[in-house]
């Protein structure tokens, strides 16, 4: 355990400061072609025509691909978990978001590739887009996804992630007051300094060597193999050097398309997104809409919570059902609320598909629950530290999905925050711990939710 608490040199520190770290864009292979993409110019449209022949006949163009070139067009990022696929690798019949890739060109240089992209003839019938998750449920809202406007494939084919715990009606009947709040964090772009980039080299033995900036090498391996319909041993992925990711490089954004171009052209190909593409077309952290109503007593107990969450998935599902599930498990934050009714929807819109970002699914609900705790304290005229410490998770309490906490850190964390803020806590708050509830901290309404930490 010598490493714990020690100040050890980074294993890649000297490489970084001497410019010797080899990022994907720094790999040099002679004869590499440049890649450019034709992307959807609109939020939503039906495709009436797509003619790539003007690009194919241009001097210096070695390969053009569309949906016709993909052996398995739809493969979900979470297919391995039983979440069905909904997103074509390259758009086919309709366009669902501005920036969606339609066709790709590999050419001798960047300028030729861009000129070839501009030569492709695209005939569109533009449709009314859905851009606000709150409008997705309206009777007159456009239906923009083959599954409807929200994801319908949770367990037992439910159309929402639902949690019921205890007796929420009892809680609201016995509340002194109800505190409500609506919380709407916006989309956030990860902005890694290294934009999405990929280099694929076709080897003489028929394999592809894929240099990838992915954060999730084995996700990408499975996704590329599935789309290409080849065994895993045909693909050699080289990764691990990521110029910033923050969740935005979990999606397999470039590897499959570059592999198809490398196979079709027989040449190494590189695709490096511009900063503009990164901002406009890469996945983002999702916007969320969260409504909370809490049944509270005037002495600061939270008897019950009703919550509605809308998770903006953008145009396709990708990882969002997983993110919303995590969100639902954490929807009481670091606090114990015994009676719960939670409904969460993964909603489709004509925005870029959203994805993981630092604390996927949980950051949004932490923002909402912590803001709401302070709001409750303000409504009741109580100290915000007191209300947090009183309702804090303790050993033996249970989470919304029934997990028994064996080592919750809420109490020591709040005490550490008080120290950092220079806040004097009263003696009974200072001596609190994570140990099981007893005495005045175990009122009648918290007895039924208790579990046995030994059985966890």
């Amino acid at each position, binding site marked *: 355990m010598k490493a*714990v*608490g020690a*100040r*050890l*040199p*980074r294993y*890649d*520190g*000297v*490489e*970084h*400061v*001497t*410019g*010797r*770290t*080899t*990022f994907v*864009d*720094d790999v*040099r292979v002679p004869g590499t072609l440049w890649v450019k993409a034709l992307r959807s110019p609109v939020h939503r449209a039906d495709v009436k025509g797509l003619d790539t022949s003007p690009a194919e006949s241009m001097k210096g163009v070695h390969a053009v691909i569309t949906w016709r070139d993909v052996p398995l067009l739809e493969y979900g990022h979470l297919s391995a978990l039983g979440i069905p696929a909904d997103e074509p690798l390259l758009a086919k019949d309709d366009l669902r978001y501005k920036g969606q890739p339609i066709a790709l060109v590999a050419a001798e240089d960047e300028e030729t590739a861009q000129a070839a992209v501009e030569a492709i003839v695209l005939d569109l019938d533009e449709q009314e887009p859905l851009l606000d998750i709150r409008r997705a449920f309206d009777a007159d809202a456009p239906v923009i996804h083959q599954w409807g406007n929200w994801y319908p494939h949770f367990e037992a084919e439910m159309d929402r992630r639902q949690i019921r715990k205890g007796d929420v009606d009892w809680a609201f009947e016995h509340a002194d007051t109800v505190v409500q709040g609506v919380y709407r964090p916006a989309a956030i772009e*990860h*902005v*890694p*300094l*290294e*934009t999405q980039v990929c280099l694929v080299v076709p080897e003489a033995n028929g394999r592809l060597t894929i240099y990838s900036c992915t954060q999730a090498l084995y996700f990408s391996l499975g996704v590329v193999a599935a789309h290409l319909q080849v065994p895993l041993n045909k693909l050699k992925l080289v990764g691990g050097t*990521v*110029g*910033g*990711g*923050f969740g935005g490089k979990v999606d397999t954004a470039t590897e499959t398309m570059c592999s198809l171009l490398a196979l079709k052209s027989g040449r190494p190909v590189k695709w*490096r997104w*511009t*900063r503009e593409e990164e901002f406009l077309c890469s996945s983002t952290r999702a916007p969320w809409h969260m409504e909370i109503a809490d049944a509270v007593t005037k002495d600061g107990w939270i008897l019950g919570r009703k919550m509605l969450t809308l998770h903006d998935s953008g145009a396709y599902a990708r990882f969002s059902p997983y993110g919303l599930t995590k969100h639902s498990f954490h929807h009481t934050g670091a606090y114990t609320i015994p009676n719960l009714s939670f409904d969460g929807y993964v909603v489709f819109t004509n925005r870029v598909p959203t994805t993981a970002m630092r604390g996927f699914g949980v950051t949004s609900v932490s923002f909402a629950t912590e803001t709401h705790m302070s709001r409750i304290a303000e409504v009741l005229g109580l100290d915000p530290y007191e209300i947090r410490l009183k309702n804090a998770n303790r050993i033996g309490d249970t989470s919304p999905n029934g997990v028994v906490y064996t080592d919750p850190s809420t109490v020591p964390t709040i005490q*550490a925050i008080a120290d*950092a803020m220079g806040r004097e806590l009263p003696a009974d708050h200072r001596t609190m711990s994570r140990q099981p509830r007893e005495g005045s901290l175990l009122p009648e309404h918290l007895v039924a939710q208790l579990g046995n930490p030994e059985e966890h």
Partner: protein
Amino acid sequence: MNLTVNGVEHDVASAPLTSLLDVLREELGITSPKAGCEQGGCGACTVLVDGEARRSCLLPVGALDGAEVTTVEGLGTPERLSTVQLAFTHHYAAQCGFCTSGMLLAAHAYVEHGGSDDRAEITEALGGHVCRCTGYVKIIEAVAAAARGDSFDLETTAASPGMTNIGGVR
């Protein structure tokens, strides 16, 4: 036309309007300057041109005939790191490493021009250099240490003043 890069003279064949960044990376194979935005907005492509920190993505190479260019490869080697390279390693100022080359050259120019360890002055000098990993604290501490002329022991990488110990780990 010719350029001297890290002390080595090169005849440049690229067209005059080619950016210095593309000349360095694509023609000369010097890959430490990074193409982060190619619009002068992020600082990842920064190099020294005649001792001044400049954004190589915005400089047409035709305007630089005879110039002396320094990249991170010219600052120091793993065996003989320069002061700012030592400071960045010691203070964990390089995380993913993608912004590091540009940061180092801006920091080197700042220290060489007599910059102090004042936090506000360092922030001003590194303005426009984007880092998405560190939150800048460790970078500023590293530049301050280099400006003060601190000595560094890379075997232990001592705690920097900004590193707290909330968990109580000893």
